[in-house]
């Protein structure tokens, strides 16, 4: 009997391996590359095959589960993220996302890398890698930022063992991959996930603030929401801002914005504090999500990182980052640019505090959500999707709290229109071309600037989102879309949010975003629903097939 069993097992194993190879290389829903294989399994047979493949890869140590999270919008559904490993080292960008319903796999989406041949014994230690980055940039790396050893798939093919770390430099927030053998830079890109901004002002509207009374002083500490939300006023102390963002120091209550009579007059503080809370509320009410990490991560907004009156003498990188920008710095920290003094102009516009636009604040916090969900890699197509999701969240929050219309404090499909005087914007979801951004996949930017055009190519997904809600015609393809209508915008918001945050892997493409949002629409609203039709037409209209 044993004589029969052993050959039979071998035959089955061979059959399984052949099946996997066929699935990975020739399956209609998989795109094959030299090393990178894209997985998009939504049908029963595909799903079962990938389920078996995942089980094998888990047994072999090629995949490790990051854990399951319950679906926030569909009861009984769960999402498991599986990271690819090679000899115990994480493969950067190698990830599968498995959706299950009552334990049965429903879909598998992701990217896996094949043919990895890398020695996983690093010649350098993590501190040497950090020192190499410090030497390159002049920036110090705090003890809170541990370099992570990864296998990095290279764009030009092949793999390299590298340390990954995110560092705040004088003018940027960059991700470095330091070759673990040579100490050289294997890859670096900006991870400054910003609204790239423009901004006008903090308007004279009155908002409620949740504050805390300590020793007779009201502090901008929101203790009414499940996560504590701090707004720090760094009073123009840029070096302290940098130390905080870099993980060298923690801030304390003396850094928290304060007001004696709880009638707050610092507009930058008011808007940063209020809008951070509003964004948390939106995520909770719309998606049942508890903050950035779904575990009520503490949120911290930093305002007044520089002094306005110093803007004339500020280095250009400081001007670009801390005056005329806002960024999500990781770990729940947002930094809002100071804008320019009244009367000063840049590009023909006056610039106000960057916390003064709700879509900008929500956009930055959207990056925090992405950080803790699909963690879309901030370059190329996944980076454009990362930006698009933040634009989608920013705009959705705006519509959640403001009346639709044009002008200040009105909800629209422009990004950052409330920051400048005269009013301007830096992106349009309705008409990306108006700001020089592509609205169609065929026009996508393929260069290397802007991390492969993350702020430009986001226009493609942004326009799909807009069309799926509002209806209309894509200006490039001329294809019309019948949207669900503004009254049902919640449906599109949910489908995109669920698709982007829970179904997409970190290395996602536009095609995967189409598949993920359609799958989300089917799951939420059924096959053949108006939502599915609108999303399908929208992606088709923007050239993502």
């Amino acid at each position, binding site marked *: 009997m044993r004589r029969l069993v052993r050959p039979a097992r071998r035959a089955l194993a061979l059959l399984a391996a052949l099946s996997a190879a066929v699935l990975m290389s020739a399956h209609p829903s998989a795109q094959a590359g030299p090393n990178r294989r894209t997985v998009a399994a939504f049908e029963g047979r595909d799903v079962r095959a990938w389920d078996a493949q995942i089980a094998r890869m888990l047994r072999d140590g090629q995949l490790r589960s990051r854990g399951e999270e319950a679906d926030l919008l569909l009861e009984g559904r769960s999402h498991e993220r599986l990271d690819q490993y090679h000899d115990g080292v994480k493969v950067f960008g190698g990830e599968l996302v498995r959706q299950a319903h009552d334990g049965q796999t429903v879909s598998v989406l992701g990217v896996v890398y094949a043919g990895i041949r890398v020695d996983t014994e690093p010649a350098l230690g993590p501190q040497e890698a950090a020192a190499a980055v410090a030497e390159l940039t002049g920036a110090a790396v705090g003890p809170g930022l541990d370099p992570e050893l990864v296998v990095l798939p290279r764009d030009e093919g092949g793999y390299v063992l590298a340390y990954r770390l995110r560092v705040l430099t004088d003018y940027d927030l960059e991700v470095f991959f330091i070759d673990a053998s040579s100490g050289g830079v294997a890859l670096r890109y900006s991870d400054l996930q910003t609204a790239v901004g423009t901004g006008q002002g903090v308007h004279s509207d009155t908002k409620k603030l*949740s504050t805390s009374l300590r020793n007779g002083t009201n502090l901008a500490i929101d203790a*009414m929401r*499940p996560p504590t939300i701090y707004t720090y006023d760094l009073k123009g102390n840029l070096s302290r801002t940098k130390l905080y963002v870099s993980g060298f120091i923690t801030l304390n209550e003396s850094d928290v914005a304060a007001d004696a009579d709880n009638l707050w007059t610092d507009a930058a503080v008011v808007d940063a504090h*209020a809008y951070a809370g509003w964004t948390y509320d939106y995520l*909770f009410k719309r998606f049942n999500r508890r903050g950035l990490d779904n575990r009520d991560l503490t949120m911290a907004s930093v305002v007044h990182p520089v002094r306005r009156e110093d803007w004339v003498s500020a280095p250009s990188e400081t001007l670009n980052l801390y005056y005329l920008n806002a960024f999500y710095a990781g770990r729940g920290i947002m930094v809002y640019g100071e804008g320019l003094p009244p009367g000063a102009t840049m590009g023909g516009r006056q610039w106000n505090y960057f916390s003064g636009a709700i879509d900008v604040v929500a956009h930055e916090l959207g990056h925090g959500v992405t950080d803790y969900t699909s963690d879309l890699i901030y370059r190329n197509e996944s980076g454009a999707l990362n930006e698009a999701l933040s634009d989608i969240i920013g705009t959705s929050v705006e519509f959640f709290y403001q009346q639709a219309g044009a002008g200040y404090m009105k909800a629209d499909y422009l990004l950052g229109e409330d920051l400048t005087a005269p009013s301007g914007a830096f992106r349009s979801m309705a008409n990306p071309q108006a700001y020089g951004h592509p609205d169609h996949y065929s026009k996508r930017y393929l260069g290397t600037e802007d991390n492969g055009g993350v702020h430009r190519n986001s226009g493609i997904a942004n326009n799909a989102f807009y069309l799926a809600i509002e209806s209309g015609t894509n200006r490039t393809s001329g294809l019309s879309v019948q949207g669900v209508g503004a009254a049902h915008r919640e449906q599109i918001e949910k489908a995109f949010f669920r698709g982007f945050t829970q179904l997409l892997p970190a290395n996602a493409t536009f095609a995967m975003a189409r598949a993920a949002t359609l799958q989300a629409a089917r799951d939420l609203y059924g096959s053949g629903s108006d939502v599915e039709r609108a999303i399908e037409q929208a992606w088709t209209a923007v050239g993502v097939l």
Partner: protein
Amino acid sequence: MARLRNVLPTDLRPAFRGVVRGALTVVAVSLLAAASADAQAQSQQPGRPQPPPAPTTAAQPAASGGAAQPQAPAPSKPQPAGATKPLARKSAPPQTSKSWKGRGFAVVAAGAQVATQGYTSTSVFTVHAEDATLTADASIGIGPAFAARAGMRVWKNLALGGGVSVVSASQSLDVTGRLPHPFQFNQPRDVEGTADGLERVETLAALEVSWLVAVSRRVDMLVFGGPAYLHVRQDMATRIQFTEAYPYDTATYTGIETVSMSGGGVGVTGGVDVAYLLSKHLGIGGELRYSYASTTLTPSKEPSTVPLGGLQVAVAARILF
């Protein structure tokens, strides 16, 4: 003035309602007795067949004071079996009420205010840096009433005098409220609930004109009325107590906060007092009184008009002098 509500514990209130019913019964019985006495009197009119008077064994004492009353003739021979006694023989009426000769009267009464008009109050208070509103529809329960009146006859059956009364009652409130959201302006949460046992003490002082109306030889009725000043001290709802939790889109009513307020107003009062005369100087009966005035109380920013008075029913003792 001590709150009568404290004098009369809650568990005695059903008994007090019995007193009220008793007062009404006394009024009714008095009127029936008066009607019966009149019937008897009419049956003794000349020209109509009279039943023979019952034999007496002892002379009846003469009625004290007042006008001399005609006495029934003494029997001269045995009466047939079954003959009834003449009622008028037993005792003479204390006085003829058709022409009141006394100097005045005093009445003390105990009963209840059985119908009191409710009121609606609105209170504005601050919650989460925004105005919250509370609207309370108050209904006033039945409460014990104590009253005293006195008058001096000035002309024929007309008397001038005054009266006071004190009523203690509890209030029940139907409360609705709009509570601001902690994070957003103009997104109030609606709550509703009830509150019971709020205190209310109402006092009345009146100048009264009274007219004595003879109903029968033993029953008469004082009809009175006049201007009155009514004063109230009562609990009024000022704030809603509630609980809330994130995301704060709803709130749960748990109770109210109150403040004791007082005010008064000039109004009118009037009523009837029916008494069965036990003697020339003492009668018992019942009293009905209706009073009305209003006052304005402002528990918090918003003034509320509070009606005062109502319908009182009481048992009463009358002293004639």
